[in-house]
C-alpha cells in the first residue's frame, strides 16, 4: 500500500499553479473544481506529462519530481496508471493487446495472460479480441481502467473518467469502481467536476480553483464546513450569505451575527473574526426547518426567520422553495420540501413562511482576503 502521495506545484505561466496534494496510501483523493480550474493540469503533472516550473512529487517515498534538484522522471519511469477523459485507447489494437502493452512482463504470453485477467476483472471477459471502435462507451472505459491497472502502478490517475458515458452506465461504473477500490486498495487521484461523484468515490476531496488548492478534507466535512465563501460556492452550497459579527461568547461557544435586521445565533468554538467585522456564513438546506402551520416542532425556537416565498418550483415529488426573509435585502434562503408538506402548509408564491435556521448548522467563515501565493514546502 505504501505511504501515499505528497506533492506540491507552483508556477505563474503558462498555466498558474499553486497546489498542494496529499493522499494517504490506499485512499482515493478527488480533485474537485469547475472546468478550467487546473485539476487536469495537476493530474498531468503527477503523471509526468507536464513539468511545472517548481514542485516536488513523492509517491510511496519514491521521488518522482524535485525541481530544486533537477529531477524529472519521465512518465515511463513513474509507475502510473492514467485513465484519460477520452480513454486514449490504441485504436488499432484489440482490447487484449491494449492492456497487454501496459503489463510489465517480459514474454508476450505472460503479458497476454495477465491482460486477460485484468479484462476479466473489469467484467469484459469474452470481449478481448474486439477493437475499441466496436465497443460501447462503458466498455471502452473499462478497457482503459484495465490498461491502467495492468501497469501495476503505484498510483492510479483518473481524468473525469465517467464524463463521457450516460447516467445509467455511469452508475454501474461507480459500483464497479468502488468494488475495485475495495479489492485493490490502490492509491487513486480522481479528477471530477461532479461533487456527488466525488462524495461517492473519494475518501478525501481537494477543492481546486484557478490552479490553487483551496481546501482538503473528507467530502462531507468540506461541504459542511467550507473554509471560505469561494469554497462554499465551489462545493455547491446554496445558502451563502454575508453578515457581521456582533459579539462572541467564548465560554458558551456562541456567536451572534447580524444579518440585515435579523439576529442569528451560531454555535462555534472559534469566531470568524473580531466583533464588529463582516463575516460570511452558510447553512446546509437540511438544517433549514420549515415551520408547519398545523403543529409546531422542536427546532422552531432557534433563529426563526420569516419571509415571502419568491421561488416555488415543483420537481417531481419535491418542491424547491426560495424565501426572501423580511429585513434582509437581496437574500434568498433555499430549501427543499416534499410535495405533500408543501400542499399541507398551503405554500405557494407570495405566501408567507417561517423557517428556523439551526444554530449548529450555521457555519461561519472569515471574509476572504488575498490568499497566500506560495505554499510552504
Amino acid at each position, binding site marked *: 500500500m505504501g505511504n501515499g502521495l505528497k506533492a506540491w506545484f507552483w508556477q505563474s505561466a503558462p498555466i498558474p499553479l499553486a497546489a498542494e496534494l496529499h493522499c494517504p496510501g490506499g485512499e482515493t483523493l478527488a480533485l474537485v473544481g469547475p472546468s478550467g480550474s487546473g485539476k487536469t493540469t495537476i493530474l498531468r503533472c503527477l*503523471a509526468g506529462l507536464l513539468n511545472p516550473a517548481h514542485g516536488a512529487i513523492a509517491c510511496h517515498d519514491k521521488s518522482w519530481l524535485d525541481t530544486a534538484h533537477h529531477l524529472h522522471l519521465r512518465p*515511463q519511469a513513474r509507475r502510473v496508471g*492514467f485513465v484519460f477523459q477520452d480513454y*486514449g*485507447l*490504441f*485504436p488499432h489494437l484489440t482490447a487484449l493487446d491494449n492492456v497487454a*502493452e501496459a503489463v510489465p512482463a517480459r514474454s508476450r504470453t505472460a503479458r497476454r495472460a495477465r491482460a486477460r485477467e485484468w479484462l476479466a476483472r473489469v467484467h469484459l471477459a469474452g470481449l478481448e*479480441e*474486439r477493437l475499441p471502435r466496436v465497443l460501447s462507451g462503458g466498455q471502452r472505459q473499462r478497457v482503459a481502467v484495465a490498461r491502467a491497472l495492468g501497469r501495476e502502478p503505484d498510483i492510479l490517475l483518473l481524468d473525469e473518467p465517467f464524463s463521457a458515458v450516460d447516467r445509467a452506465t455511469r452508475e454501474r461504473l461507480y459500483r464497479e469502481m468502488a468494488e475495485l477500490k475495495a479489492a485493490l486498495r490502490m492509491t487513486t487521484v480522481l479528477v471530477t467536476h461532479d461533487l456527488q461523484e466525488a462524495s461517492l468515490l473519494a475518501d478525501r476531496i481537494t477543492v481546486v480553483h484557478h490552479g490553487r488548492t483551496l481546501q482538503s478534507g473528507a467530502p462531507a466535512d468540506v461541504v459542511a464546513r467550507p473554509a471560505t465563501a469561494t469554497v462554499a460556492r465551489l462545493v455547491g452550497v446554496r445558502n451563502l450569505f454575508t453578515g457581521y459579527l456582533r459579539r462572541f461568547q467564548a465560554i458558551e461557544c456562541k456567536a451572534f451575527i447580524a444579518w440585515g435586521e435579523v439576529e442569528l445565533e451560531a454555535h462555534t468554538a472559534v469566531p470568524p473574526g473580531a466583533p464588529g467585522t463582516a463575516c460570511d456564513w452558510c447553512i446546509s438546506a437540511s438544517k433549514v426547518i420549515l415551520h408547519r402551520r398545523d403543529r409546531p416542532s422542536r427546532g422552531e425556537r432557534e433563529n426563526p426567520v420569516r419571509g415571502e416565498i419568491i421561488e416555488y418550483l415543483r420537481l417531481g415529488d419535491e418542491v424547491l422553495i426560495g424565501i426572501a426573509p423580511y429585513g434582509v435585502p437581496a437574500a434568498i434562503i433555499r430549501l427543499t420540501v416534499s410535495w405533500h408538506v408543501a400542499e399541507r402548509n398551503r405554500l405557494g408564491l407570495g405566501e408567507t413562511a417561517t423557517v428556523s435556521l439551526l444554530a449548529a448548522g450555521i457555519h461561519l467563515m472569515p471574509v476572504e482576503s488575498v490568499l497566500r501565493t506560495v505554499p510552504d514546502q
Partner: protein
Amino acid sequence: MDWPALWLSLELATWTSLILIPAALPLARILAWRHFRFKGFVEALVALPLVLPPTVLGYYLLVAFGSHAWPGKLFEALFGHTLAFSFMGILVASLIFNLPFAVQPLQRAFEAIPLSVREAAWCSGLSPWRTLWRIELPLALPGIASALALTFAHTLGEFGVVLMVGGNIPGETKTVAISIYDRVQAFDDEAAGMMSALLLAVSFLTIGMVFALTGRRVAPHG
C-alpha cells in the same frame, strides 16, 4: 514503345520514394507535434514546390550544380561527372520537387493521432521508440501509403524540371514523359499513344494497389 525510358521512369520514381519517405517521416512528425518559432517558415518551404514552376527549380538546380559553382565542382570531384544531364541530377531534382507530396500526407496522418493516445502509451510504459514503432507508425500507415502513392505517381509524370536538368539523354535522363514528347515531335503518334496509355495504366495500378493495401487494414475481424 520506349522500354528503356519506361524503366528509367520507374527507377526514378522508386528511388525517389525510397529515399524521400523515410527522410520525410521525422520531419512530418516534428511539424505535426512540435511548436517552434520558425515552424510556419519551414512549412511554407516544404509546400513551396507545390506552386513553384518546375522550370524555376530546374534553373536554380542548373545554376547551383553547374560546373562553375562549388556544389557542382564538389559533385564532379566525387562522382566524376556533372550533376546536370545525369540520373543523379534528375533524382536530386525529383527529391526536392516531391517534398510536399511526401511530407504533407505524413504530417496530416501524424496530426490525426490524438495526443491522449500517445500519452497513454507513455504512461503505459512504452518508450518513445516503442511508441513510434508500435503505435504511431501503424496509425499513420494510411498517410504513409498516400505519401508513397503521390510521390511515385508525381515522379512518373515529371517533365519540365527533368528536361531542364537532365536534358534528353536516352537511358540516363530520358524518362517516359520526355519520350512521349520526343515521339510526338518525331511524328511517331503510335509510340506516343502507346506510352501514354501505358503510363496511365501504371499510374492507376500503383494507386489502386496502395489503396487496396491500406483498405484491408480497416476491415474488422472477429
